[in-house]
Structure formats: structure tokens, C-alpha cells
């Protein structure tokens, strides 16, 4: 592979509470190639959303901050940019769509205007051009009758249509990387499949790269080229999709896979991973998964495993990786 489109090195998100710092996302590193879809998986609270908000430098609270080595995108280091420079990149290079389309669209502004806003800002288009472009984008995301829908308000759209509209708002800025934060969680299953298909289509047509955040392995398996698993703020395994699904090597990835309903069609009781993730303000010295890991050994308790290349294109942070697929 040539130089990746997006290169993240050691990205951390840190919260300042009172006198001390809590690291919520711990030294995240990964590459995203042109047209690649990376699935970022983990249970809620594992820091996947926060990591992506950190990438955009759009953190949800004032006491949070981003640190790290570098985040390279389109010749810029996002960590070195000032707010104005970052604003120029947001939307145009890095687009974002969210879990809840209803609240992430301005209720008082027509859909077309919200799309046109980004087009005019980033492409310097006139009002008329932007409107034509907005209709075109709406058509691309599969909204029927875009000529008249462009003048609708968000509340006049159904849930699935709203998600399409939000994708259209992000696409209007013509970004190279699209961050999709649980884009299908709030939708019902049939609509979910439609939206995922749309995202794949957009990748094929526009060569868009994507980071798809999800807690649902099914969603990730359907769409992604590679999968990264996060646990308690750290990346624990990252590799090609087929490799990850067929032969997960981190006990947590394997456990996550085993928990998925599709993996246990006959099960009377669903398999779960026993225990709770550690609290981020009271982390153990060793591996964060140690207390729940069936493979744990004394070393795991003492030393935090680093994320290392286990085989070409497959990185792993574990002292006791599984050799063959699945839990024994």
C-alpha cells in the first residue's frame, strides 16, 4: 500500500477532572487507505465515539482535550492546526454523520438549505448552484423526488429518510473521509440494511474512505474492509475483516464474536463476556481485559501489552493471543 489517506499516530483524549487527568482514549494508532472502510468496534464507553470526535477536534465537553503524535490527512497534521485551519478541513476533508438523525438536523431549516450550506461554504458555489447540487446529492442518497423534497423540513421525513438526508448534508461538502458514528443504531432492521448498502455504494462511486463506528458486529461484517476493536480506551486488535472474523486472536475480539447472535444460532442462552470493563479513573497496571480474560496469566496483571504487528496487516495487543479461531 502507498501512503494512507489518513494516518493516526498516538491519538489520546484526556479529561481533566479537578486536579487530575483521566485518559479516556489511550494512544490510538491506525491507517485508513483510499476507499477503505474501517469498522471501529467496542462496547459502549470504550471510547470509539470520543476517538472520532477527537479526530474532528469536536469534543463534547470543555474539559476534554486531544493529545498525540500526529494525525495526518491531506498533507496536514490535524494536531498542529489552529481552530480556523481545522474548521477549513471539517466537512471538506473529514465529514461526520451521527447516530440520531432527528436531533442532528436543524428543525427550522429546510433540508436543501442545510445541504447547500456546506456546498456554498466549501465550494464557493452560488445559491442557485448549491441548490442544484443539493438536489443531485439527495438523488445520490436515494431520496425519491428530490426536486420537491429539497424544500422539506426534517420533521417531514421518516427516520430512514432523515438518516439519508444527514448523509446528504455530509456528502454535500464532498469529504474524502466520512466518519459514521453508529449510523444505523436508531433505525429498524430493513432500513438499516438500506443505509449500509447506500454507504457501500457511495464508497464505490466516490472512492470515499470511511470510519464506521458500531457496537454491532453484524453491521461491521457486512460493510467493512478492516476491523479495529477497542476496549477501555485502547485498541486491542486491528486487521483485515476476514482475518478478524475467521481467526480473532485477542481473547476480547473472540469473546465479542462469540456473543454475536449470528454466531450462536442454536443457543438457548446467549453467550456473554462475564464481568465489567474497568473504570477509566481506576485502571489496572496490566492488561485492561485481564479481569475478564479466560486466558489471563500473571504477566497480564503486571504489564500492559503494546499494540504490535503480529502478522503482516494484523496488529494485536495481547500477551496470550489465541492461536486458532474461536475460544477453546
Amino acid at each position, binding site marked *: 500500500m502507498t501512503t494512507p489517506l489518513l494516518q493516526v499516530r498516538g491519538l489520546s483524549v484526556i479529561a481533566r477532572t479537578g486536579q487530575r487527568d483521566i485518559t479516556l482514549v489511550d494512544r490510538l494508532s491506525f491507517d485508513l487507505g483510499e476507499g477503505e472502510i474501517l469498522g471501529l468496534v467496542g462496547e459502549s464507553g470504550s471510547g470509539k465515539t470520543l476517538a472520532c470526535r477527537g479526530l*474532528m477536534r469536536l469534543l*463534547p465537553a470543555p474539559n476534554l482535550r486531544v493529545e498525540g503524535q500526529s494525525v495526518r490527512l491531506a498533507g496536514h497534521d490535524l494536531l498542529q492546526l489552529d481552530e480556523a485551519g481545522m474548521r477549513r*478541513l471539517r*466537512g471538506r476533508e473529514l*465529514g461526520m454523520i451521527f447516530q440520531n438523525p432527528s436531533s442532528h438536523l436543524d*428543525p*427550522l431549516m429546510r433540508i436543501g438549505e442545510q445541504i447547500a450550506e456546506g456546498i456554498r*461554504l466549501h465550494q464557493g458555489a452560488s445559491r442557485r448552484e448549491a441548490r442544484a447540487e443539493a438536489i443531485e446529492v439527495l438523488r445520490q442518497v436515494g431520496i425519491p423526488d428530490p426536486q420537491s423534497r429539497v424544500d422539506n423540513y426534517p420533521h417531514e421525513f421518516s427516520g430512514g429518510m432523515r438518516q439519508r438526508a444527514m448523509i446528504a*448534508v*455530509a456528502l454535500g461538502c464532498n469529504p474524502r473521509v466520512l466518519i459514521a458514528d453508529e449510523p444505523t443504531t436508531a433505525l429498524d432492521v430493513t432500513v438499516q440494511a438500506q443505509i449500509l448498502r447506500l454507504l457501500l455504494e457511495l464508497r464505490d462511486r466516490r472512492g470515499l474512505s470511511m470510519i464506521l463506528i458500531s457496537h454491532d458486529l453484524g453491521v461491521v461484517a457486512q460493510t467493512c474492509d478492516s476491523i479495529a476493536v477497542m476496549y477501555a480506551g485502547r485498541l486491542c486488535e486491528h486487521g483485515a475483516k476476514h482475518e478478524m472474523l475467521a481467526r480473532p486472536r485477542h481473547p476480547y475480539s473472540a469473546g465479542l464474536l462469540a456473543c454475536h447472535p449470528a454466531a450462536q444460532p442454536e443457543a438457548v442462552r446467549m453467550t456473554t463476556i462475564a464481568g465489567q470493563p474497568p473504570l477509566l479513573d481506576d485502571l489496572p497496571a496490566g492488561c485492561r481485559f485481564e479481569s475478564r480474560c479466560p486466558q489471563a496469566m500473571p504477566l497480564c496483571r503486571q504489564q500492559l501489552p503494546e499494540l504490535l504487528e503480529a502478522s503482516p496487516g494484523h496488529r494485536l495487543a495481547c500477551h496470550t493471543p489465541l492461536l486458532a479461531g474461536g475460544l477453546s
Partner: protein
Amino acid sequence: MSLARYRFVLIRPLQLLPVLLGISIITFVLVRSIPGDPARVLLGARSTPDAIQKIRAQFGLDEPIWVQYLYFLKNLLNGDLGKSLLYKVDALPLIASRIEPTLMLVLGSVALALLIAVPLAILAARSKGGWADNLIRLFTTAGLGLPAFWLGLMLILLFSVHWGLFPVSGYGRTWADKLHHLVLPCLTIALALSAVLVRNLRASILLEMQADHVTAARARGLGEGAILRRHVLPNSMVPTINLLAVNIGWLISGTVVIESLFSLPGVGQLLVRGIFTRDYMVVQGVAMVLACATVAVNFLADVATTVLDPRVKIQ
């Protein structure tokens, strides 16, 4: 606007009928509570025995009380609410001729109040917890406790007596002259009103700044200024317009005092003069007209909200 919206605007006034009827009942009760013979009161100065007899028939004063109310209603619909004792003309046309200055005063105050409140609320919200925010908070606390008549006098002292910028009292003849006379009265009410508005608007701006759609706008690369102008302010204005409508009664009460202070020949001044001259029909007429105006303004605010906020459900 869709057909449903037009229908809403047409049907909604019908729902106001019970309240308007209620207003007429209260006015009737007030008129009947006036001490003395109602016929004499209604007639005012020209109470010849003949005329009294005529009024007794017209208002059905010898009939039972509810029949009297129906007579009262019928006369009201004909625009007849008795005569002004002082001006020797029908009360309702007299009131109508005084509406213009009051209307100008209300509109000017609201416009000026928004002009003051919006920038202050933005400033307060952006410097939340800072010295500007606390200073503005002090202004709003003081503003809520300022008696309008005293504030007006202090403004006269400063702008008219000290700097000679605006006239002390009265109302002009030409439009330019009228506006010149209206500046201080409007400013007086606007200062008090903006104190109420700033508190509310600041809270809703802060709330909107945290809204998801604002985060989405930031993720699109919009600058803070554009976000404020295009997304935060429009969304915060909807509750502000409702607040204005809720406060219209208070605003009209304010104009009564301010018109007396600045000798503006409006409805409020008519009301206060009417009380002193025992011009009962004018007093009750003004009360009724102002109540109807309050109801109408609240209705208009409803319409404005449906136009501004496409989400409002239309039954």
C-alpha cells in the same frame, strides 16, 4: 404554507369566541357595578328625563339581568358602549381615535427591546460565567425591579433636561415629529422588557449551543458566527416570541403608566383621565378594548410560531 396551515389561521379565531364573550361579561359586570343609576351613567351629561327613558328602553334596564346582558351585547356589536361624559361623544369611536399612539408605543418598545436584548443575550451566553455575563445579570435583576414611571423620569432628566436631545412630553403632528417624541417612552418600556427577554434568551441560546444539530453544523466546518446566526438564533427566537406574547398584558399595563408620564394621547392616558373624571363608560370601554387587543396579540403570536416553526402540529 400548506392548506392545513391556512385552515388553521382561519379556524383558530373561532376558538377565541368564548374568551371574547367572557371579556364582554366582565365588562358588563363592571359597568353594572358603577354606583348610581345606569341610565344616567350611560348618558353622561345629557340626562334629560326623556333621554333617560330612551336609554332605559335601549338597554332594557327594567328587564331581568340576563336580558340586560343580551341588550348590552347587542349594543356592543353595534359599536355602542354609551357616551363619554367628558368628551360628549360615543365611547368606542373616542377610544379608536386614541389607538395610534398606543400601538406605536407598543411596537416601538418591542422593536427596541429586541434590539437591546438580542446582542446582550448573545454576549452573556458567550461569556457564560465571565464578568460580562455577571454584569448583564445585574442589569436584568435591576430591570425587573425598576418602576417604569421612575425610569422614565430618570431618562427625561438625562436625555431631555441634561442633554436636550428629546422632548419631555407630548406627541407630534408629522411622522418624524411623532417618532422623535416616541423615543424616550419606547426606551423606558424597552429597558424593562429587555431585562425579561435577556434572561430567557440567554438560557435558550445556551441550550441551543449544546444541541446536536449545532454539533453537526460544526462538523460541516461552519464558523461560530454562522452557526449563531443561522442555527442558534432562529431556534432560540421561537420561545422568545412566545415570551413576548405572554408578556403583552404586562406591556400594555406599562404603556398606561408611560402614556400618563409622557402625556402621550393614547388609550392609556384616556383610561387614567377617565378614572379621575368619573367617565365610567370610557374606562370600561378601554379595559375591554385592551383585553381584546391582548387576546388578538396572543393569537398573532400563535400564528407567528406556526409560520416560524414548521414542527408545530396543526389540529
